[in-house]
Each structure stands twice: as C-alpha cells, then as structure tokens.
C-alpha cells in the first residue's frame, strides 16, 4: 500500500476516473490539492478569472463531448459560493460537473473562520441537488457522466 496525502489520493482518483482537465483558481485553503495536482503532473489546468467562470467552463466541457466531465476547482468561502450558479445551471439541465472546494480545517468549521462558509449546506439546497459533502465516501461515482 502506498502512503500519501488525501489530496494526492484525490488526484489519483480523478485520474482513474478519466479526468484530464481542470478549470479553476488556487487559494490558501485549496493549495494542498493544487500541490498534489502539480506533483502528479498529468492534469491540464485552465486558470479562470472568476470561479463562476470556471464552473461554466466545466459545464461547457461536459456538454461538448461524451465520456469525460468538467471539473472546477476553487478555494473556500467565496469560491464555493461563486460556483453555486454553475452547479444550478448544470444540474438544472442534467449536465454533470464536479466542483471541488477547499475548506477551513475540520476543527474550525462553524467558528466563523476566515472564508469558512458551510458550502456543503449551501450547495445541498440547489435544485436537483447533487449535494456535495466532504464526509460522503461515494464521491467517485459522481465523477462519471450520468447518461440519459
């Protein structure tokens, strides 16, 4: 067995799920994930100017070709809330995208830390809600296109 950070494991899972492209922008709370992306060296990253833009890029990407879904990445707080419009747009038309956000450390959740908003709760309210949650173990199944 290999020992690695959870961020490295997350990148390895994305690779095994056939993900090749990311749209997003780094930030303090998501930098460990970006470090893992850099170590891996196989994912192509398009640097958006606005996180909502990254989420719409992911949707356009999914719509263009079968087999791969768009992935957008951002930091905690406003990056996640910026993605909500993209999650709504994609899910309203049954277009799968994966949105990855950084977050404050677990012990600091719900203590009003800098840029520590409960994005899972906010996103869970989006229509047709594919509610994201760091505590759910089933996330890999969502990396693939839902057909039909």
């Amino acid at each position, binding site marked *: 067995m290999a020992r690695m*950070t959870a961020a490295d*494991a997350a990148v390895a899972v994305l690779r095994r799920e056939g993900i090749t492209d990311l749209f997003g922008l780094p930030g303090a709370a998501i930098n460990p994930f970006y470090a893992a992306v850099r170590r891996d060296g196989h994912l192509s990253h398009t640097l958006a100017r606005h996180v909502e833009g990254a989420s*719409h890029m992911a949707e*356009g990407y999914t719509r263009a070709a079968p087999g791969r879904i768009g992935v957008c990445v951002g930091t905690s707080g406003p990056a996640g809330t910026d993605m909500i419009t993209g999650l709504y747009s994609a899910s309203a038309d049954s277009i799968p995208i994966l949105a990855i956000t950084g977050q404050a450390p677990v012990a600091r959740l719900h203590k009003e830390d800098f840029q520590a908003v409960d994005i899972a709760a906010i996103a869970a309210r989006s229509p047709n809600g594919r509610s994201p949650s760091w505590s759910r173990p089933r996330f890999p199944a969502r990396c693939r296109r839902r057909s039909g």
Partner: protein
Amino acid sequence: MDLPLDVQLAEIEFDPECYEPLPVMNPAATRAQAEKALDLLGRAQRPVIVAGGGIVNADAADLLVEFAELTGIPVVPTLMGWGVIPDDHRLMAGMAGLQTAHRSGNATLLASDLVIGIGNRWANRHTGNLEVYRDGRTFIHIDIEPTQIGRVFAPDFGIVSDAAQALARMIEVGRERAATRLLPDRSAWAAECVARRTTLERRTHFDHIPIKPQRVFEEMNRAFGPETRYVSAIGLSQIAAAQFLHVYRPRHWINCGQAGPLGWTVPAALGVCVADPDATVVAVTGDYDLQFMIEELAVGAQFNLPYIHVLLNNSYLGLIRQAQRAFDMDYCVQLGFDNINSPETDGYGVDHVKVAEGLGCKALRVRTPDALPQAFEDAKKLAAEFRVPVIVEVMTERVTNIAMSGTDIGNVVEFEELALTAEDAPTAVSFAAAD
C-alpha cells in the same frame, strides 16, 4: 466536493492501482414497456416525438433518427435536444415552445394526437400553458430520472429508462412489426409536417441599417457549416438564434436551458474549446451576456482557445425590455451612454472592441449587413492565425421584438413580416427539404 485543509493534508493509505470506478445505475426499458409504447403509437393518427437533451446525454441521436425513420414519425426537438436530428432532415418538424421555437414546430405539436417525450422534462418554456399543450393528446414519457415522470403532469404511460436503452428496445419491437406490416404508414402526416415548415418560415432578409438581428443569423447560416458548435446562454439573441440558426449534429447547440445564467456563454465556449480543440466554436450573445463575464476572454487569450463570438450589440437588456412592454415601461434596461473614450460607439456605451483587445483578443465591428460575410471570413482567419477568441461586434438596431408567447404555444406573437417566398428566408433549410 468540499475538502477541509487538514483533510487534504492528512496522510492515508491508498492504492490507486486498486481503485475502480463504481458502476453507474442505468435503468433500461423492458420489452413489455417498448411494446406498449408501440401499441399506443400504433393507435395514434398524428404522433410526434419530442426529443430532449437526455438523448444527447445518452449519445443516442443515431438511435433517435433510426426510430423516427423506422416509424415515420416527425420529431419536435426540445431546445436541449436540438441537433439530435439534423435541421434538414425530412422528419425534423421544428422546435415547439413559447420562445426558442419554430412556427411549424408549434403548429405540428398542436395538430398531433399523441406525443412521445424521450429524455425531456416538459419545461415550461417548451410547453407553455399545459391545458393547450395537452389538450386531447395522449402522452408517453420516457426519462432516466424516476422523479421526472409525472413531475410536471401525469403522462398516460411512463417509462423509466435511459434514452438509448429505450430507443434500442423500441427499434427492436418496431422492426419486428415492420416486417409483418404492422407499422402504420405515416407518409401523409409527415408530408403535412414538411409542408408546415415551408409555409411558416419567418423572414430573415432585411437590408436595414442599423442591422436587424435576423439578417445576422442569415449570414451566419452562410458563413458557418454543419460542423459548427454554437454556444449561447439567454436573452433575445439566444431566442432568435434558436429560431433562425441551423444545427445538424448533437452537442452542436450548447446552451443552458433551464437556469439561463447571464454571462455563461464566454466561459462555456472556452470549456467547449478545451474539450474539443479542433472544433469550430461560434458563440452568439447580446452585449449584456458578454459583459457579465467578459473577464474570461483573457483566459481564452492566455490559453489559446480560439472561438468566434458573434455579439449582437443593441445596447439593451433586450429580453427584459420586451417583457417590460407588459408593464408599459422601458425601465433600467438601457445600457447606452456616451463613451468619452470611444465616441465612435455612437451612444451605445461600452466599446467591446477595445475591451476585447485589452484582454488579449481580436475584435471587429460591423455596421452594415453587406459587411457581415467578410467580417465572418476575417474572424475565421484571425482565430486560426492568432489562436485567441475573436469578437465580431454587430451594431444592431436598438429595439427588435422577437416572436414569442407569454401564454401558450398557439399564441405566439409575430412582430416582423413572415417569409412569403424563399428569397425572404434564403438560408431556411425547410425550402430545400421540401424540394
């Protein structure tokens, strides 16, 4: 997927080589369900297929066309399904709906006696008032999502199935029935639908200056071939694009149907460019959708993601202005101002050419209809040479009312002249389809 900082950094045991993607649930229509759908279709006199985006997601456009050809049943694509059957196919009956629709699509839907919806959700911009839409018709609904069946209205028969699986099973049953001459002959009904297309076209050929948007779409039809992937989001430009452009392949009309978030077009087009670097990508928006997320153009310039962005600049929130007619107002929707740095914008406000150039893109401005063909050719060359987004800013007339209905699909208001001859709509494919 929300990843707390300490979770990202935590060390875990994980073997990527032993990781396997979990299976995805993919419900499939049964033989009995397919037979019953075919039974209901067989009893109808004037059936239509409403083909939704689920067919695109299931990569089942070929199966949809095969099923339509096997049974001879005309197809009314939804906005999300546009492209599953080519626009110039004889069984393409036109789209139905309140806004993004063809006159023939609405007329055919209203003339039908049975509707089989496949991978669609009976969106309200498609159905309009449900009493009119449903009146006297039998409905079959096939969708992969169990909660979609009966969500908007209860169909006479519902099937929970992936679109490809359902179509394959219905084709299997249909072939058997065709072999024993049990499939009804639909040629008279299909001919009726083709005739509706040729007699119900809207006019696109206008020579006005400032340019009328209908003419822009006519020239786009000439300039861009069937391989073009169109991207649009929301507003009068999206609605008119759906009425006047032509789409021939699935995934070649890339549009956010239900949510319609302004600003979607630029980033979505860039996402399409990343997914398919060899594609001809053409976006079409009004000025406000472009302004909403215009900063993303820099992403296209930085990462060499070339596409052509046809900007219909009327210096207005045009769809909202049109909706405000019901309130007898034109309030907070004008985007024009005298630009102190760009007097040549003539009160239209933002100088999109300068902004686009400032973000590292190429841009052209067009003021007369005669200049449109050359502008599109120049845009193609610039995109190919510099590998950046190219904006074609078309200065259109300020106020254009686009055909739509606020109530039901039988009540679409036309604001412009209709096409009386092929010269009025020279790029409409219906006239060719009828020949």
